């Protein structure tokens, strides 16, 4: 009995996840199309480049959380390491940029 509910729950969860994955997949394709369209159009560079970066970051997050299951249990250490690395790299790049070109 207990096993059965567990199985049902698992099934429901899988279905839920599948739905999310399809949605994010579609979104990612849309994002990519937007990115290409923006590069092809002759919009101002200063406007296009930051948006491209933003889209890229969102896509990375989608990738990590919906396709690589980073929100699931057992991923705390990779998450910690990644955010730690991003944090250190960001500070370093910020510091370097400010110190060298300011």
């Amino acid at each position, binding site marked *: 009995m207990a096993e059965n509910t567990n199985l049902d729950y698992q099934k429901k969860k899988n279905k839920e996840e599948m739905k999310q994955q399809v949605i994010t997949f579609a979104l990612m394709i849309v994002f990519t199309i937007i990115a290409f369209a923006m590069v092809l159009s002759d919009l101002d560079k200063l406007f296009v480049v930051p948006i491209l970066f933003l889209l890229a970051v969102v896509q990375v997050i989608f990738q990590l959380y919906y396709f690589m299951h980073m929100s699931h249990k057992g991923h705390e*250490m990779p998450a910690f390491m990644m955010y730690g*690395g991003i*944090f250190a790299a960001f500070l370093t790049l910020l*510091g370097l940029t*400010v110190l*060298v070109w300011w």
Partner: protein
Amino acid sequence: MSSTTMTQKQGFAATLWDYLTTVDHKKIAVLYLIGGGFFFILGGLEALAIRIQLIQPNNDFVSNGFYNEIMTMHGTTMIFLAAMPLIFALMNAVVPLQIGARDVAFPFLNSLGFWLFAFGGILLNCSWFLGGAPDAGWTAYAPLSVVSPGHGVDFYVLGLQISGAGTLIAGINFLVTIINMRAPGMTYMRMPLFTWTTFVVSALILFAFPALTIGLFLLMFDRLFGSGFFDASLGGNSIIWEHLFWIFGHPEVYILILPAFGVFSEVIPTFSKKRLFGYTAMVFATVLIGFLGFMVWAHHMFTVGMGPAANSIFAVATMAIAVPTGIKIFNWLFTLWGGNIKINSAMLWSLGFIPSFTIGGMTGVMVATAPADYQYHDSYFVVAHFHYVIVGGVVFAIFAGLHYWWPKMFGKILNETLGKITFWTFFFGFHLTFMIQHFLGLMGMPRRYAVYLPNQELELGNVISTIGAFLMAFGAIVFVINIIVTTTKGEQVSGDPWNGRTLEWAIPNPVPHYNFKQLPLVRGLDALWIEKTEGRKELAPAEPLDDIHMPNPSILPFVMSLGLFIAGFGFIYQVDHPSWLIVLFIGMGITLGTMFIRSIKDDHGHHIHKEDLDEEAR
């Protein structure tokens, strides 16, 4: 070592082949020990040459140009080729045993990491015989390093690039090993501190070494392929090298010191018969130091002219590191307090470390005070500071660790009398050499100069310093004698000669090459001690006796590294004549070829069968 009895029966060639192809972490530890020990002696001889040159004003023991080479190679050798590999020796010997694993996660890469280090170091030192060693300081600041004539700095660039790749590989390997291969029950907060520091250090390697790799690439292109990254006349910026170097360089000093902290956190509890005071705080401090280590690099550049705002930020961030470091010092003192203390060589090095390192930390805060650093910078005061932390911290830890884990690595306890002679002469010589250098620096003696003038009251201090250096050399020689005496005359001891607390002491002596017949079940911090307090002698197994899967030995890592070594010469000399490109292609061909073989040839390792394990037990 499990194979000592076997090797005695084997011939020399067979033993050599065994070590060239080994992927066993215990044997790779021995290789790192031999390699690091060799370069430690080499760097020590260079140090003696420096001190002989400086024993009197206007001395001409070596020429000015040659002095620059010796001084550069001393620093480079000691940091990259002696301290790092000796620490890797301890990590390889101990960490898999401490976490209850049969080997590291990637045994093949482990061997590759060692051979890359070895060939990088040899390449660097080939420069002595090929027109002169690098002479731009171990920091190789541009533009000097770009314009330095001859091939010296090219050897620096290629040698460090190759050995740096080995270090990066080793770091990644330990990360994966510690995350994935801990025995059942060994949660993160049950890991011994040496394992914890290895873990944090591996992360530091992963994030810090790429900065060096990039810096070296840029320097290589400037020197060998005509680019102008650091050349102001071509629109480059030489300060970028300094930044890249120290973005790597400051984490590097923590890569060196954190494992040292780990060693002392093992030795002190064992010989005080107490658990480590403030374990959680120790772990937290280690992680915090790891993070802060990335945010302070510009304290090496206070005098570059970054401006008061940047200088203040980096000064404050630097001083913040003194806080977790202080926490650690107090925790060791509290571990000692009220303990049942046994003083032997390992413990002597640990007790000597505490005041010595604290002095280094104190001068660290002094040099971190940006306005004051305008006075200290590039003087002997800085030389005194970093020798207090590196020798008083890292080298003391290596000696302590070797005394402590020698019975685990080689089955015998190092001779105590000789060990104590080494400690006292080295300890005394160390303070004699470097304490006085603080004052020489304050009196205005600049670092990295081959001569100083008479009648500036610098004579006496320099004589004292040189005498101290010879005392240290004496101590080091006695240590080598100690190794020889112990190896030939020492007696085999049990697997747990110190009444240890952590998992590695649960293994019999000699350590079987699969480490654990059955993986142990860990029930808490100081896993073995817990069992001892409950009257058991060993840990309960976490699995039934079964076949053990082990990796196969391989010569490929050696050949891969050899290829890069050969290619290094091609890179360096193709500026003289394009025909050297052939050497480059041959070398890269060998490396890429072996990588290809490795990729397509399946190697599933081998099994040690259950029946054979039973047999051995009988």
